C-alpha cells in the first residue's frame, strides 16, 4: 500500500490565510476589550462564561445547543415615580445590562402592559427575549440568575435567606410610607405610626454592626428594596407637612441613606425631587377632595 506523505503546500495555503486573519481579529478584539469600562467587561465576561457553561454543563435534552439568553433583548416597562420600577433600573445598570426603557401611563394602561401582565396589570415588567417577568422582587431574582456579574445577593444560602427576609419586610411595610400622603386624619396617623415602627425595626435589627450597606461593604438587593426610605420618604414628608425621619433618632439608618445615595448608579438614577413633590401634592389634593 502506498501512502502519500507529500506535504502539499497549495492545500495548506487557505488554512494559513484563515489563521493569519483570525490572529489579526483576535488582536483587534483584545484591544477593544481592553478599552471597555469595567461594567462592560464584566457583562462580556458574564456573557461568555454563561455561553461556556451552557455549552459544557447544560444537559437539558430540550435546550438549544447555544443559548445566548443573556444577550437577548431586554425591555423594562416602568413608571418614573415608582420605587419598584427603580429597583429594576438599579439592578440592570449595576450589572451593565443594556435595556430599552418604556414609560407607562398608569391612568391609561398600554396594550403592551396589559398583554405582558394580564394578571396584575402593574409595573415594573421586565421583558427578556419577548418573555415578560412581573413583580419587582421576582424580576430581581431573575436578573441575578441570568446575569451573575456584580452579584446582588450573598452566595451563602443562610445570608441569602436573611437578605430575602429584609426584602420581604420592605415589601410588606413600604406601602405605609405612601399612605402618609394618600390619607388624612386617623388613617394618616396609622400610616405614620406604621412607618415609624418600620424605621425603628430597620434601625434596631436590620443595620446592626458597623455595616455600610445591609449586606456589608457592597450594595445589594436589600438596599434597593429600601430605596423608598432613602429617597421617597423625604418628599412624602414635605407633601404631608410632617417630620417623621429624625436623623438623631435613627443614626444607623441615616448613615445608610448617605451611603446608599452616594453610590453612583443610585445617585444618577433617582426621580427629580421637585417634580415628585409637585405631582404628589396634586395627587394628595385630588384624593382628599374625593373623600
Amino acid at each position, binding site marked *: 500500500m502506498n501512502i502519500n506523505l507529500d506535504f502539499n503546500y497549495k492545500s495548506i495555503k487557505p488554512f494559513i490565510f484563515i489563521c493569519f486573519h483570525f490572529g489579526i481579529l483576535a488582536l483587534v478584539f483584545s484591544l477593544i476589550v481592553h478599552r471597555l469600562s469595567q461594567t462592560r467587561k464584566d457583562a462580556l465576561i458574564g456573557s461568555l462564561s454563561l455561553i461556556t457553561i451552557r455549552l459544557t454543563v447544560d444537559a*437539558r435534552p430540550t435546550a438549544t445547543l447555544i443559548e445566548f*439568553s443573556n444577550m437577548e433583548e431586554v425591555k423594562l416597562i416602568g413608571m418614573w415615580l415608582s420605587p419598584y420600577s427603580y429597583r429594576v433600573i438599579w439592578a440592570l445598570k449595576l450589572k451593565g445590562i443594556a435595556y430599552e426603557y418604556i414609560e407607562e401611563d398608569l391612568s391609561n394602561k398600554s396594550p403592551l402592559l396589559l398583554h405582558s401582565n*394580564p*394578571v*396584575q396589570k402593574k409595573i415594573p415588567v421586565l421583558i*427578556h427575549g419577548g*418573555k415578560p*417577568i*412581573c*413583580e419587582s*422582587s*421576582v*424580576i430581581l*431574582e*431573575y436578573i441575578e*440568575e*441570568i446575569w451573575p456579574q456584580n452579584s446582588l445577593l450573598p452566595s451563602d*444560602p*443562610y445570608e*441569602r*435567606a*436573611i437578605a*430575602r*427576609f429584609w426584602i*420581604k*419586610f420592605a415589601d410588606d411595610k413600604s406601602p405605609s410610607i405612601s399612605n402618609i400622603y394618600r390619607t388624612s386624619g386617623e388613617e394618616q396617623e396609622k400610616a405614620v405610626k406604621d412607618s415609624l415602627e418600620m424605621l425603628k*425595626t430597620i434601625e434596631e*435589627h436590620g443595620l446592626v454592626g458597623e455595616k455600610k450597606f445591609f449586606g456589608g461593604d457592597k450594595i445589594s438587593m436589600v438596599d434597593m428594596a429600601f430605596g423608598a426610605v432613602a429617597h421617597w420618604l423625604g418628599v412624602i414628608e414635605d407633601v404631608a407637612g410632617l417630620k417623621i425621619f429624625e436623623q438623631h433618632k435613627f443614626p444607623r439608618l441615616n448613615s445608610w441613606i448617605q451611603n446608599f445615595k452616594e453610590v453612583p448608579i443610585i445617585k444618577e438614577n433617582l426621580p427629580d425631587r421637585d417634580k415628585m413633590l409637585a405631582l404628589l401634592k396634586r395627587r394628595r389634593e385630588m384624593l382628599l377632595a374625593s373623600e
Partner: protein
Amino acid sequence: MAEVKLHGFWASPFSHRVIWALKIKGVDYEYIEEDLSNKSELLLKYNPVYKKIPVLVHGGKPIPESLIILEYIEETWPENPLLPTNPYEKAMARFWIQFGVDKGPIFRAFFLSTGGEEQEKAAKDFLEVLKTIEEQALGDKKFFGGDTINLVDISYGYLAYWFKNVEEVIGIKLLEPSTLPRLSQWVQNFIEVPVIKESIPDRDKLLAYTRRIREKLVAEQLKK
C-alpha cells in the same frame, strides 16, 4: 450534618408548608411545638421582628417566614427539586407564590366576614382570586408543578384542607367542582400525595380550632 429544628404550631398552614418541604427532601429535623399564647424566649430571640412561627433553625441559625424558609430548604437540599431549573419558569413559579401573598388580605376579609353585603363582596372577591389561580396558574396541569408538586403547590396547600374548614365555619362554599373543576381536582390530587396526607392534622380538631381563631379575630376586628 448540622442540626435542623422547626419551631411550629400544629394548626398553622405556614408551619405545615415547612414540614412538607422537609419531608419531601428527606431532611431529619426536630419539631418544637410553640404555645402561641405564651411564646417561648427562644422564639422571640429567633424572630424578634415578627415574633411568629414557623422558624427553621439550621446549625443554630434561625430563618423566619415560611416562604423564605422554603427557598432556603430548596437551595440547601437540592434533591427532589421543588422549583424549576429554567430561570424563566422559576420566575413564573415565584410570581404565582407572590400572587398568593398579595391576595392574603382578600382571603382574610372572607375569613373574617360576618354577613350581609360585606360578606357577599368578600366571597365574590376571593372566588375571583381562586378562578385566576385555576385558570392562569394551574391550567390543565395535575399540579402547579406539573406531574409532581412544587413550591407553588405547597404555598397554595392550605386551599386543600384548611380552606374547607373556613367554608364550613362561614357556611359559604366557594371551592367546589361546579365552580372550580380543575382546582377541585387539584385538591383531591394534592391531599393524596403521601407526604401531605400523613402531615395534615385531624379534621375535627382543626375545624374546632378554625372556629375558635375566627371568633377571636372577628372580636378583635370589632374593637378597632
